[in-house]
């Protein structure tokens, strides 16, 4: 491939556009075949268990530590201005607006996304997807769609768990360890957090991240070279592409939601 040869450049552009078109087509198939896979809810339920339940520990522990750190950092900053009572409000806004959806999505990409990519890639390498096709069963509908919708459903739930545990972490550090008034901690939070503007936008973000991370993981697995090296590369691509997409989308969504 040489960048000064118009033929090579044309080939590369056409190849990328073809990949993009293929990805868009797969996304639409997954999105529109969702109703059919939701009808066989047992398949989706099993995947929610696999993706959600097994990610719960890492999400909860990470949320707790992030809450601890937020509690400490914000307490020292607020104390300078004599506003340490606002600790609960600040910890909660940071978590529900930003850190909950974003960090939970990054952890989800690392824990569940890689697992999805490796599973689909190894099924492909073991000719299981071909076998399914030859049994007149569409692998996109039978294997990919339930995982896709399970990811979309699971992501906001995990983000909610992350934020809730994070708030408890902030409470432990702020109230139990540093002596912030518990009434002020909860009261300021209740008064300052808007359900739709703050919590609602955070939920929308986590749903968008759920679509993004799960789709990238499934696409990488489905398109992986059916070799050990191919699956390994696909798994790495999932983490890189999903993490960058989450961070990029977070900026765009934040700009749209909170700057107006």
């Amino acid at each position, binding site marked *: 491939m040489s960048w000064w040869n118009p033929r090579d450049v044309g080939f590369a552009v056409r190849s990328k556009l073809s990949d993009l078109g293929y990805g868009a087509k797969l996304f639409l198939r997954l999105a529109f075949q969702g109703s059919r896979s939701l009808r066989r809810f047992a398949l989706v339920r099993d995947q929610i268990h696999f993706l959600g339940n097994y990610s719960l520990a890492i999400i909860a522990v990470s949320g707790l530590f992030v809450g601890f750190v937020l509690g400490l950092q914000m307490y020292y900053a607020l104390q300078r201005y004599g506003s340490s009572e606002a600790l609960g409000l600040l910890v909660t806004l940071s978590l529900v607006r930003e850190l909950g959806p974003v960090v939970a999505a990054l952890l989800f990409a690392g824990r569940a996304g890689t697992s999805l990519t490796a599973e689909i890639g190894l099924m492909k390498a073991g000719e299981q997807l071909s076998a399914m096709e*030859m049994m007149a069963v569409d692998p996109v509908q039978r294997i990919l769609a339930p995982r896709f919708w399970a990811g979309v459903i699971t992501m906001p739930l995990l983000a909610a768990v992350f934020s809730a545990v994070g708030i408890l972490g902030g409470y432990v550090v702020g109230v139990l360890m540093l002596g912030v008034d518990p009434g002020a901690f909860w009261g300021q939070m209740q008064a300052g957090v808007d359900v739709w503007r703050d919590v609602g936008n955070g939920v929308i973000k986590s749903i968008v991240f759920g679509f993004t991370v799960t789709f990238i993981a499934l696409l990488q697995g489905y398109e992986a070279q059916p070799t050990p090296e191919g699956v390994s590369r696909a798994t790495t691509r999932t983490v890189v592409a999903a993490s960058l997409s989450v961070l990029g989308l977070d900026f765009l969504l934040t700009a749209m939601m909170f700057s107006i």
Partner: protein
Amino acid sequence: MPGCLLRAPGFFIEMDPAAQPQPFVEFRDVRFGYGERAILDGVSFSLPRGKVTALMGASGGGKTTVLRLIGGQQRAQRGEVLFDGHDVGRMDAATLYAARRRMGMLFQFGALFTDMSVLDNVAFPLREHTELPEALVRDIVLMKLDAVGLRGARDLMPSEVSGGMARRIALARAIALDPDFVMYDEPFAGLDPISLGTAARLIRQLNDTLGLTSIIVSHDVEETFRIADQVIVLANGGIAAQGTPDEVRNSSDPLVHQFVHALPDGPVRFHYPGVGIEEDFGPVHGGHP
């Protein structure tokens, strides 16, 4: 048709093989390749109903491609691949899936679903395509497993069975929906002599008992010739020989002779084409004439 428990909803007309002279599968001047490189070029042959046809040839000769063309996983770039008289290349997705319900395929290493037990693997196509009650599905699965001698292995996981057993379980799964046509992709690869003999006997026995039409891609000349009614040898993108096992065994074609008698050198060279030996090792003294 004998041995049929289940049938795909009427897409093709069911006919008695004896009363139907039309071949089950027919290739007419088929070309398939990647870019400029043709894997198959101008290939024509037919698979007679009720018979076992062996497809042989050197690695990379297009044998698995033939199976993928019949199954519609690849489309011919030229010519027609007829499945029961219908061109697979012209089928839309729904028609192709209906046709696939009449096919069974045994993959080289079984391709069992690793997260399901043996029973669930064989039950998979039944659960996907029928509304049968679970008790009946279980009975059918046990009958299929019994046919391959593995009824007792129903609760094992694929990781707990040997390569030969995995192949037999995959065979039970391939015939779960009582197909009319079964494709075997290297069913004997890597099997010990006992498993190999068992697999070969099963293929022949199932073909005759269930009234199937079968195609076997295999490198095992002796075992395949023993069970096949017809042998097709592919080479250089075309058909090098075609006929009964005895006719192919006695073929005077040098390539077929090399293949059938497993000779290391002949039209298919032992050495991959490359630079001369002197270029790599310097002048050779003595040794070679």
